[in-house]
């Protein structure tokens, strides 16, 4: 040791001036750099494979026999649904293991809370990061869709901000459950009983009128239905103003309300 390690204790620390949540988001971004290649290539491969197999392969059969769905090719119908479904799956995945891990395994949340950051910074920073991730995922997906020629309207670009909102609406309720859970056993159930059924039945693969009447109502109450609806309307350029405004409102309200519940859960678990 040649020099003083600490120059002076009481001197005010120079700071950059970033708000706490932004620091948290930037930490996620920094950590993400470690895995971005595999993550990005997965975001690219998934739509390519699905659109090729189901959109083109299965789709030509459906188009041949049923003349497409509601006047559009099956590929055009399917692609936006898959995009919204992908946003759901990735948002939920990011809100389960990584959240409980940061509490119990890596204990990163505790490290953050020993600094000037508070639980609200953790929640907001995390959800903003989810929004950023969903922007990346949806932009890549849109790029693949464009290559398949299924983005039928310039409005399709609005799918990126819609996916950001939808991602928060899906991730926040799950994160607020995950942060309180003591193990990861509930996550398999979330996948089996929530994510997969939503993915399959939220008009992702077939239109609402194919469902029995009772289930139609149920489907319309779920968040992914509205995400799919809105994404599809934008990609096809077929806006139904009232219905799509309701879709957007649903997602915004869910995102807002579950952000608040997430903030309460984080505080409950981490400030004891």
């Amino acid at each position, binding site marked *: *040791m040649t*020099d*003083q*390690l*600490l*120059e*002076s*204790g*009481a*001197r005010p*620390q*120079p*700071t*950059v*001036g*970033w708000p*706490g949540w932004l*620091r948290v988001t*930037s*930490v996620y971004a*920094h*950590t993400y750099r*470690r895995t971005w290649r595999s993550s990005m290539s997965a975001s690219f491969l998934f739509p390519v494979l699905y659109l090729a197999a189901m959109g083109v392969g299965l789709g030509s059969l459906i188009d041949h026999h049923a003349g497409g769905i509601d006047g559009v090719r099956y590929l055009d119908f399917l692609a936006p649904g898959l995009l919204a479904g992908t946003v759901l799956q990735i948002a939920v995945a990011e809100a389960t293991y990584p959240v409980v891990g940061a509490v119990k395994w*890596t*204990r*990163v949340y*505790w*490290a*953050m*809370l*020993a*600094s*000037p*950051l*508070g639980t609200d910074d953790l929640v907001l920073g995390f959800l903003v990061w989810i929004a950023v991730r969903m922007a990346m995922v949806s932009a890549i997906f849109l790029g693949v869709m464009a290559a398949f020629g299924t983005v039928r309207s310039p409005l399709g670009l609005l799918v990126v901000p819609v996916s950001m909102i939808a991602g928060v609406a899906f991730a926040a309720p799950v994160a607020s459950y995950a942060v309180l859970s003591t193990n990861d056993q509930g996550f398999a159930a979330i996948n089996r009983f929530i994510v997969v059924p939503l993915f399959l039945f939220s008009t992702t693969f077939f239109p609402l009128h194919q469902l029995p009447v009772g289930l139609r109502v149920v489907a319309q109450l779920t968040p992914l239905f509205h995400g799919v609806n809105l994404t599809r309307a934008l990609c096809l350029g077929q806006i139904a103003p009232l219905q799509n405004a309701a879709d957007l409102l649903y997602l915004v309200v869910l995102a807002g309300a579950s952000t608040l519940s997430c903030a309460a859960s984080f505080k409950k678990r981490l*400030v*004891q």
Partner: protein
Amino acid sequence: MVAQGLEKRFGDFTAVAGIDFSISRGESFGFLGPNGAGKTSTMRMVACMSPHTGGQLSVLGMDPRTSGSTIRSRIGLVPQQDSLDDELTVEDNLYLYGRYFDLPKRLIRERAVRLLEFAQLTERAKDKVEPLSGGMKRRLTIARSLISEPELLILDEPTTGLDPQARHLLWDRLYRLKSQGVTLVITTHYMDEAEQLCDRLVVMDKGRIVAEGSPRALIEQHSTREVVELRFGLDQQHQGATAIADLAERIEVLPDRVLLYVHDGDAAVAEVHRRGLLPESSLVRRSTLEDVFLRLTGRSLVD
């Protein structure tokens, strides 16, 4: 830092049952106690991570309830369990921690060089944390807590689980910090650690403070100058003890040996021999903090 009647309850369970202490700037202060004594709960309150449920607490002259974030920007915490990101490099762990404190990148990089040297981790800067030894991780955790140049460093069992080499290295590093004017607050259940590092300490048991003072003062107050450890054959333990009970201020009969708390150990051993008793072995040693600790908190296991 001042605490008065400080209390922490979790529902029906009282972890800290009203304790008073005050720690001055530049001091090195220890909290000793068996597992479950309430040390960690106290540290979490002092680190402004856990709100107190009763009494008064002031840290760096501020109220944790209203100025928690400001206080935390000026203190460093070394938690009992490491909270490093195993997948990141040593360097990145320091960098991100500095970003929690909103420090500029360049400043963090500058400090990281010095801190890695301090923690003897310079060669491992680019390595991932995961394969590092326990001692290295602990040193990294301490280095990390110093990235914000805290005025007050809180260490919760800093050397638990480390080998003697790693412990001595850590003590040396902590001693340097202390000599640079950093206030240290340390919890430990290692007596030698407390004797090495603490100017003053309190002994906690079941959520309360049962003794307070400098290590030397506590020994004088709660033990004798010397201790004689005698081993009789297993079946003669009690017989031997009865015969010499009057020699000591206090006598303790353990399953394997008899402890005599006396002022002059050699004189006591000579007297034992003069009475015709022949212990298998006898050892005279100075009283240690461990004697005080065991006297105050008992020998039975707490958990």
